[in-house]
């Protein structure tokens, strides 16, 4: 059974339809890129899964539970961790406090305290610069450091599926490479399922995995990133040309 399944999801902002009848599913351990031009509805789709944007129609299932219309905090409890666009670091909190915000939902579990400490060490091992700045204000970190912080913060919740909205936004290319390097390593380490939104398909082609291309709120292509990316179909789909 798939970890996340969307069927006929529609998202509307007043009269504007951002996402129209989108269906797809992700299996455990899969990496899925959602790409497409600005305004394709990628972010709206992620926000709808996370529960922060209401769904106008359709159904979403996560790990065997229907989550359509559920509160974000309940969806997070089922193992969905979101890294939104623009990172959304809690700037006035320290780096370590940022990492700890999401651990509270498991506070009733047995052995929570020691597991949290372990998770913290694991995140610090992956991102050593976070440990150096652990007691510094998170708002003062650089863009790349903040991106690593929010990925670390998402991991601290012990998720099954991590969704990341435009991790490349506003980052220098070499920093971006670093972010992806860590992400791929983490995925292998923890058997994470990843759902990554990117505007360009270049990154998806480099990393590999499955890719969905959205345009105008709908899925236009769905397949293997490398095969799709090299073909001409992607350009046509991306820019909306018709084949002649």
């Amino acid at each position, binding site marked *: 059974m798939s970890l996340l399944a969307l069927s006929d999801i529609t998202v509307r902002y007043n009269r504007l339809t951002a996402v129209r009848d989108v269906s797809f599913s992700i299996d455990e351990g899969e990496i899925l890129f959602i790409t497409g031009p600005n305004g394709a509805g990628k972010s709206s789709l992620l926000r709808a899964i*996370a*529960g*922060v944007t209401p769904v106008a129609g359709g159904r979403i299932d996560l790990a065997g539970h229907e989550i359509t219309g559920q*509160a*974000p*905090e309940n*969806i*997070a*409890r089922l193992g969905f*961790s*979101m890294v*939104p666009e*623009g990172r*959304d670091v*809690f*700037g*006035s*909190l320290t780096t370590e*406090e*940022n990492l*700890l*915000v*999401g651990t*509270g*939902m498991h*506070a009733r579990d047995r052995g929570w305290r020691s597991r949290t400490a372990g998770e913290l060490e694991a995140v610090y091992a992956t991102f050593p610069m976070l440990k150096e700045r652990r007691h510094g204000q998170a*708002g003062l970190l650089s863009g790349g450091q903040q991106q690593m912080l929010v990925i670390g*913060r998402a991991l601290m*919740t012990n998720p099954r599926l991590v969704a990341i909205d435009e991790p490349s936004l506003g980052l220098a290319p070499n920093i971006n490479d670093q972010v992806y390097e860590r992400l791929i390593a983490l995925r292998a380490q923890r058997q994470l399922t990843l759902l990554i939104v990117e505007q360009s398909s270049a990154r998806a082609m480099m990393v590999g995995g499955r890719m969905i291309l959205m345009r105008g709120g709908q899925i236009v292509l769905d397949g293997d990133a490398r095969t799709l990316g090299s073909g001409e179909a992607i350009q046509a789909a991306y820019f909306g040309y018709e084949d002649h």
Partner: protein
Amino acid sequence: MLQILFDALSLGSLYALGALGIALIFGVMRLVNFAHGDVIAFCVFALLWPSTDAMAIVFAGQLPWYLLVPFVLLCGAGLSVLCEIVVFRRFRTGNPATMMIASFALGFVIRYFLLMLFSSRPKSINLLPELSQPIEIFGARLPLLQLITIIVTMLILLGLTLFLRRTRFGLEMRAAAENFSMARMLGVRANRVIMGAFALSGALAGAIALIFGIQTGTADIQMGAAIMLMAFIATVIGGLGSLAGAVLAGFLLGAASVIMQVMLPIDARPFRDAFVYGAVILVLLFRPQGLISARGTKERV
């Protein structure tokens, strides 16, 4: 001189506690809660037995102080949480202006409820009379209550700071105040945090009610509104949503009022408040974002 300092500090304490109550709620749900002042008034009247007689029938107010204080704090917290559940929860997804109007309306409901039970006449109450005794410090004679007000306020501020900095609930509250939807995506329960903020704010209202009630020796359904106005101004000057700013501005306002009372020429003293508000306008002209701007309320670019 010492007398002025203590006057300023104790008046500032009241404003600071009031401002804190407003800032706490504004922080988590962007609501300027104009009903806060009426929660304060409610707490004072909670000490009396309902009657429209001119004479106050002190009821709960006769409790010894160690029961009286928790009783009033609980009244404030309880009413405040009730307001959240019954009213504000329905407007949470609405726009801030709608919520603000709702808080006005709710304030009137509470006020007229009190009016119905107690009539509009201010009643004289005599709570903990032993606190009105003057004591002598460094040659100045000060009412004991003033000293206690200042100490209690400092303790409350210290306690609140520790609560926000050291506890998990405090951490979740600070995260939610900065970015509510992100906090929820990390599993922070919206209802719990908002109810916590309302409970704290209500307890602060209870503390103000006690101090103010003992200080003035009257119970008046209008009494909350007066403090509320100053407290609201303090939250705005302090930078809406910034707790430290609210406290700082509260003390500054208290100090400004007391100092102007002393420094202004005799003829101008009746217009003291005009001067205080004038100073407020000046501050806002130079720092429209408030003394300490809250990061969370900044627009994203």
